[in-house]
């Protein structure tokens, strides 16, 4: 189907309309445009999905993006199974979040409301470009576009300095990753001369890479992924990115943008399959991030911070999946995570909305009876993320953990530890928010209300998805050939070598059982512990203090990187710039002044002196030209 280009075009049109006419349009018109284009994209994506399912995958080339001599990069879209899955996630979850936003952002003035939707549409456009591009360059355009939109939306309330700093931090962190990504692109380009997937990922082209090339390129690409997908060591921007409006956190910093790194690695899985070393690194960093971020989330009280660290942790699982070669599992987890994490964020947004901007769960509690829909959906999402069967998170996480066990049991144990952390912090925050007695102010208690329909309907839809999405990927042990997603994606990943070790069904059953029992035990423990949470003035001590302070990572970064760089910049500014650079500039000026004052004396006003100079110059000229035999040539030319 040749309508593929319409999918990203609709959000672009929406961006242009909302962006250019933000002063003229009413809020209603903005919502209609903003949500309408997304719905249109979603419907097109569905059509595209069925088209691909019927065998319509392929590359659509539209025009030459760069065409210099024999260097050519076409503007083309790759429409295949992997793209289709991401398209559905982006436009589907995106539509729901747009609808949710139209209610959530109601308090903004029309102009800023339109600005918000313009950014959101631009984001979706960039994201679609990222997943649809048929070569790394188009992907990079989208990659940068989503980074920009992330920056704009984190700093959406630009009058608050802290938010601006958070936006800047996100931008700079992303830029560090982007540098790696860019270098990898240039490396690929210099080796093969093409960035198009369908040309690059062929045995002939891949044979042009040496082992070192592949390792370096994949590592550099992974650096890009750690920036965009918030992995150790570049994850610290994501928790701070919660400064943006909550729907933004749901869409960009949970469901879609942060999965760009996973998409990119899944897309270049053939390269990665050639680099076992990189895969090990990815798996280690993935599992480390999963456990590390989850441990931080254990002691956070800000509901959005918990979700942010949870996102980082879940992304870690996805990378773990990628690292151990479970590409299908990683994509599966991207999908289920998109549902339940968007749901969690939107639920949190609903709570924050009701609490009048309060985000600290210590001042919440007992919201169960005030906001039934939010409560139920949030609970379902918690069960999903904790990995309780038969909710979606169970299937996707189990698939990754099983693959990790097949690769190395240590990865599995750490993964399970992270999963237990996840169950604990999710139910801790759930219990603190919805159970017990209300701990907020009187004023807030009066104000409590269930959110409007535009917010609860997306919540309900997402809740249904979060519950049932797991059945798209039923493991083979329950029913052979029931893993619909894997079957659907198989054309994309079929070129991979088959996994060398497969687990016996017995082991798999056992693993599943152990995890489930442990998770449920943790949930019960957390529920008991925090159901009647009371504020205590007691200072936290020991490990919990370290956790509450996020392992002091921000402080360590400040001390190790930010401050030395700042000092070095100051040194450059005060010493190098002021003495050397200014010295050179002023020195040139002073030299010219001095020498002109001296040369001025040559202008004696004596005509004789001038003529003397003229004659001497003539002589010099003659000598120069005669030596070059110009004169002789000239004379010969005359008398030829």
């Amino acid at each position: 189907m040749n309508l593929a280009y319409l999918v990203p075009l609709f959000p672009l049109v929406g961006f242009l309309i909302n962006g250019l006419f933000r002063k003229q349009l009413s809020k209603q018109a903005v919502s209609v445009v903003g949500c309408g284009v997304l719905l249109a994209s979603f419907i097109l994506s569905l059509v595209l999905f069925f088209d691909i399912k019927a065998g319509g995958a392929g590359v659509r080339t539209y025009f030459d993006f760069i065409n210099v001599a024999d260097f050519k990069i076409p503007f083309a879209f790759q429409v295949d199974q992997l793209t289709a899955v991401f398209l559905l996630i982006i436009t589907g979850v995106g539509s729901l979040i747009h609808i949710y936003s139209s209610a959530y952002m109601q308090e903004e003035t029309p102009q800023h409301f339109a600005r918000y939707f313009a950014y959101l549409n631009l984001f979706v456009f960039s994201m679609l470009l990222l997943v649809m591009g048929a070569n790394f360059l188009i992907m990079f355009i989208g990659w940068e576009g989503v980074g920009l939109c992330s920056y704009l939306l984190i700093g959406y309330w630009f009058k608050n300095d802290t938010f601006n700093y958070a936006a800047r931090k996100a931008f700079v962190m992303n830029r560090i990753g982007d540098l790696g990504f860019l270098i990898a692109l240039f490396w690929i380009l210099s080796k093969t001369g093409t960035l198009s997937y369908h040309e690059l990922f062929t045995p002939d082209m891949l044979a042009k890479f040496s082992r070192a090339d592949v390792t370096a390129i994949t590592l550099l690409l992974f650096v890009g992924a750690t920036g965009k997908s918030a992995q150790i060591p570049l994850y610290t921007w994501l928790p701070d990115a919660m400064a943006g409006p909550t729907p933004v956190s749901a869409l960009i910093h949970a469901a879609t943008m942060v999965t760009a790194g996973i998409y990119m690695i899944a897309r270049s899985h053939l390269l990665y399959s050639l680099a076992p070393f990189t895969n090990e690194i990815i798996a280690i960093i993935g599992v480390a991030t999963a456990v590390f971020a989850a441990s931080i989330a254990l002691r956070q009280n800000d509901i959005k911070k918990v979700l942010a660290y949870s996102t980082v942790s879940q992304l870690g699982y996805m990378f773990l999946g990628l690292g151990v070669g479970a590409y299908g599992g990683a994509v599966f987890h991207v999908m289920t995570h998109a549902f339940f994490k968007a749901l969690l964020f939107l639920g949190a947004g609903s709570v924050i909305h009701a609490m009048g901007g309060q985000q600290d769960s210590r001042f919440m509690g007992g919201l169960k009876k005030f906001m039934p829909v939010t409560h139920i959906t949030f609970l379902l999402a918690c069960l999903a993320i904790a990995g309780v069967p038969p909710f979606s998170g169970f299937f996707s996480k189990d698939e990754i953990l099983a693959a990790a066990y097949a690769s190395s049991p240590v990865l599995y144990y750490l993964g399970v530890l992270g999963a237990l952390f996840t169950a604990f912090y999710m139910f801790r925050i759930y219990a603190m928010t919805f159970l017990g007695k209300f701990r907020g102010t009187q004023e807030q208690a009066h104000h409590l209300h269930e959110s409007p329909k535009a917010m609860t309907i997306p919540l309900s839809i997402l809740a249904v998805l979060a519950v049932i999405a797991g059945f798209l990927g039923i493991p083979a042990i329950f029913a052979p050939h029931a893993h619909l997603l894997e079957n659907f994606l198989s054309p994309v990943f079929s070129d991979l070598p088959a996994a060398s070790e497969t687990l016996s069904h017995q082991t798999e059953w056992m693993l599943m059982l152990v995890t489930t029992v442990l998770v449920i035990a943790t949930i019960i423990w957390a529920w008991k512990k925090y159901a009647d949470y009371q504020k205590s003035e007691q200072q936290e001590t020991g490990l919990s203090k370290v956790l509450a302070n996020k392992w002091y990572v921000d402080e360590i970064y400040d001390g190790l990187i930010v401050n030395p760089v700042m000092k070095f910049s100051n040194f450059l500014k005060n010493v190098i710039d002021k003495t050397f650079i200014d010295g050179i500039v002023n020195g040139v000026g002073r030299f010219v002044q001095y020498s002109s004052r001296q040369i001025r004396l040559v202008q004696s006003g004596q005509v004789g002196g001038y003529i003397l100079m003229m004659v001497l110059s003539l002589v010099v000229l003659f000598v120069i030209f005669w030596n070059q035999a110009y004169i002789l040539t000239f004379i010969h030319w005359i008398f030829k």
Partner: protein
Amino acid sequence: MPIQYYIALAVTLFSIGVVGVLIRRNAIIVFMCIELMLNAANLLLVAFSKTHTATTGLPLAGIDGQIFVFFIMVVAAAEVSVGLAIIVMMYRNTHSVDIDFLNRLKN
């Protein structure tokens, strides 16, 4: 006569003119030296015109050179009349024909 002798002669005359302009301070002598240089050029033109006739073999080839000499003389005459008028003027104002006296260009 080989043309290089004429070139050498003209070059010598020209250089003498240059030296004269450089070493004399009397404006009239300087002026005369300029005339000398003009004449060196004229001599060379005539010599070249004759050479041209010889090398091409055409009876009227090179006549342009002599016409040019004629025009140079015309221009020189006009130049001399104006130049001398200026020198007279200068003498009347400063009672000197010393060119170094005219260093007003300095300011």
